[in-house]
């Protein structure tokens, strides 16, 4: 009992909201930096960039797993407690639910954005 109360009083992690977009941003930077450095330093004369495609695909898998985890935890927080509690009350519970919901939605958006970033690099696949 005391444990659950103490957890209820924990300050809601506001930064959770930005964590999924942050993963997207890091994925974006990593992908383009890899492509830029590879094409400038290592590419063959025919400009093929298969290695970049592989690297971007693995970044994407990692990023999507992270985003899925963030989204799932947001979703859990959103569904925590009574279902009828609204998102815009001033109570701790409503605050937590609101942050959970925002985290979840932003995770969905970040997943799509990460996929779009990856698609470009995977489709183009050359340094031209």
């Amino acid at each position: 009992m005391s444990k659950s109360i103490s957890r209820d009083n924990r300050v809601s992690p506001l930064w959770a909201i930005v964590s999924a977009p942050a993963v997207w941003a890091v994925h974006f930077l990593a992908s383009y930096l890899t492509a830029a450095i590879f094409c400038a330093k290592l590419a063959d004369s025919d400009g093929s960039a298969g290695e970049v495609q592989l690297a971007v695909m693995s970044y994407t898998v990692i990023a999507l797993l992270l985003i899925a985890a963030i989204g799932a935890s947001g979703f859990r927080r959103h569904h925590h407690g009574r279902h009828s509690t609204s998102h815009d009350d001033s109570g701790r519970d409503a605050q937590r639910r609101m942050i959970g919901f925002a985290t979840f939605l932003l995770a969905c958006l970040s997943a799509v954005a990460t996929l779009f970033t990856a698609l470009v690099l995977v489709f183009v696949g050359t340094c031209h």
Partner: protein
Amino acid sequence: MRPELIDDVSQSALDPAGVGATQIVDLFHWMVGGGVVIWLIVVGLSVYSIVVPGGHRPRLTKTLVIGGGAVVPTVVLSSLLCYALAMLPELHRPPPSDSPTVKVNGVRWWWRVQYQTDDGRTIETANEIRLPVDEAVEFKLTSEDVIHSFWIPSLGGKVDMIPGRETRLKLYPTRVGKFRGVCAEYCGTAHAQMRFDVTVMPRPEFNRWLSNQSSDAREPSQQSAIRGGELFRRKGCGACHTIRGTDARGRVGPDLTHLASRSSLGAATKPNNTENLRHWITHTHHVKPGVTMPAFQALDEREVDAIVAYLEQLH
């Protein structure tokens, strides 16, 4: 007075005559079709919600809002993205190394065009581009002043011309004919008159044209043309214009070595004929406001006649 514009050639992206333009048209049709379907669904639903009274089941409403508002747009946009991205590798692939390369510089408000011959010489012309049909051509584009954009709607996409940087564009014309090229980035007063002629022709004709362009200007033989050449020199036209084979070596304005073989004047502002050529020299800013070339209003009739006679034999 209605301006005598040259609008007899295709400037339509919906009338494709090249590989790139065909793909763009396909993409356009898919998007219009998709847009119409989505529009019909949205408007249909709004009409339905107005006409059919009473509430709707909350679960169904929620599914429709999330499905129609988030899931469907994501799926539609993703498939459009994939469809468009799949076109990119081919558009970006450099053409075979033996295909012709054309260098084009945007200059306010005309186009400096340079061809490379097989023996490594550079041939300059202006405001006119000729291409062999059914061959990939690479354009190397840059600008000498502000940002311009090089666009031949019937042949393919447009690419910006940026000062200090070389951008590339590959085109693959598939149909013989005449097309209109334009500057597609606002660049000042005469931007709307910064156009060019594109002629796609069979390879043998193209070779004949290129070998004619690579020759020096012909010597005038008629009396008035000889006098015109003299006047061209004396009036200082050569400070801005090059006529190869003479001492006119200016680079401010278009190369005039084979002016008479071009179909238009002033970057495809007017058809190239005697009357328009006279008018261009004496009332330059009337024809095309803003250009660097001064109007030579002080020339008398006979001097203009002579200069025009000289320019008109520069085939």
